[in-house]
């Protein structure tokens, strides 16, 4: 192998990569926020007493989980215009990501809800809470605590999967990488550096989720206890 690596042409265009990184971050952030909300609603509704609602949601979850994100993205961006529904790249991307994450989140949160003992719900209802109150005030938090690692993993996978959006022209990190590639012909170097960016982002995600877990779920001991006992 007599190839000399040239990272300089890539480093010179770091501003392009950074602007792509910003797009990747905010697209991921919005998709996670909306997809999580959709998944919560889905998990609540899939336990409904109405059979038709359960069937519809079950079909949605299976349809999404058994087809690739790329096919979903192409269907929304290239397929829907066939029916007269035209979307720009970023809207199509957002819809695809949210619908996709919503299905995975529904399945994960549903598993978490099932793991909370039924006695909790019964106790809440016996105390006069409504079903919605029981869901939000009593069942949801322990369910999310159980499912937190799975959710955090799914969100990180979604962030990495946003690289697929470059295929319909969303100007994300990966799109910028291919721009630099075609301008410099330093393909290997460009994509190696880009992978480094994603890795750094994934590590930031992990830190952020650990922090979030600590803030939301850590059991705060009463103030009079010494701190050594409190941090268990």
């Amino acid at each position: 192998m007599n190839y000399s690596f040239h990272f300089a042409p890539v480093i010179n265009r770091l501003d392009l990569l950074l602007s792509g990184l910003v797009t990747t971050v905010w697209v991921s952030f919005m998709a996670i926020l909306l997809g999580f909300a959709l998944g919560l609603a889905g998990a609540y509704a899939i336990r409904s007493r109405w059979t038709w609602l359960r069937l519809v949601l079950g079909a949605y979850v299976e349809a999404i989980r058994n087809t690739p994100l790329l096919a979903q993205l192409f269907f929304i961006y290239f397929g829907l215009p066939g029916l007269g529904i035209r979307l720009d790249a970023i809207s199509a991307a957002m819809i695809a990501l949210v619908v996709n994450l919503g299905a995975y989140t529904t399945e994960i949160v549903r598993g978490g809800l099932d793991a909370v003992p039924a006695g909790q719900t019964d106790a809440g209802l016996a105390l006069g809470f409504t079903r919605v109150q029981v869901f939000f005030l009593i069942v949801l938090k322990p369910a999310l605590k159980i499912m937190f690692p799975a959710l955090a993993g799914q969100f990180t996978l979604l962030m990495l999967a946003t690289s697929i959006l470059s295929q319909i022209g969303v100007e994300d990190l990966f799109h910028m990488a291919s721009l630099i590639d075609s301008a410099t012909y330093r393909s290997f170097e460009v994509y190696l550096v880009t992978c480094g960016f994603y890795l750094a982002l994934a590590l930031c995600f992990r830190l952020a989720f650990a922090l979030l877990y600590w803030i939301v779920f850590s059991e705060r001991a009463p103030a009079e206890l010494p701190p050594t006992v409190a941090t268990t």
Partner: protein
Amino acid sequence: MFRSFGPTEFLLLAQGLRWTVGLTALAFAGSGLLGLAILLCRTAEARALRWAAEIWIQVIQGTPLLGHLFVVFFGLALFGLDVPRWLAATVALSIYGSAFLAEIWRGAVQAIPKGQREASRALGMRSYHELRLVILPQALMIAIPPTVGFLVQLIKNTSLASVIGLVELSREAQLVNGATFAPFLVYLCTSGLYFVLCFPLTWLSRGLEKRFSRSR
């Protein structure tokens, strides 16, 4: 001018399944072998091996598959090798899959209670017999359902091989769409074909999981 999207075009589209299935099989074999190697490093005595395996898993799981595809595709070309696209895709998907399979299998091995090992030692079993008769049969039961689940992930992820020009189902969809310009039907059928491939496996994985968890 444009052809209409009829049965012939559907068959053309379905031909893309050949590489989707073929690439899945190749990548599954590659992921399995590489994943087993990572698993052995991860559980090795030598600390350096354990660290190397840990770093491998973190780096692969922290970077997108699209990145692996391009780095492998252009990286192999640097060696002056004229690699066919299917080989580059197989290598990239195997690298990607190895990190996930190693994690799944490690979980399965760790799920075997320590007492099982101690009991086989107490019965005077050699480590080979301990592995073959006590640990592996139980670990396999735990590992098979999520491994089948991972196979579904792999099938879906072969769609990304289209970006380096491998004509599998997703790329075939783009080609057929270019000829017929019936995007709604083409992409609906494409998703349908993926579903037909994946759903039985998802169903199998779920069934196996129920059965194995009941038998324990």
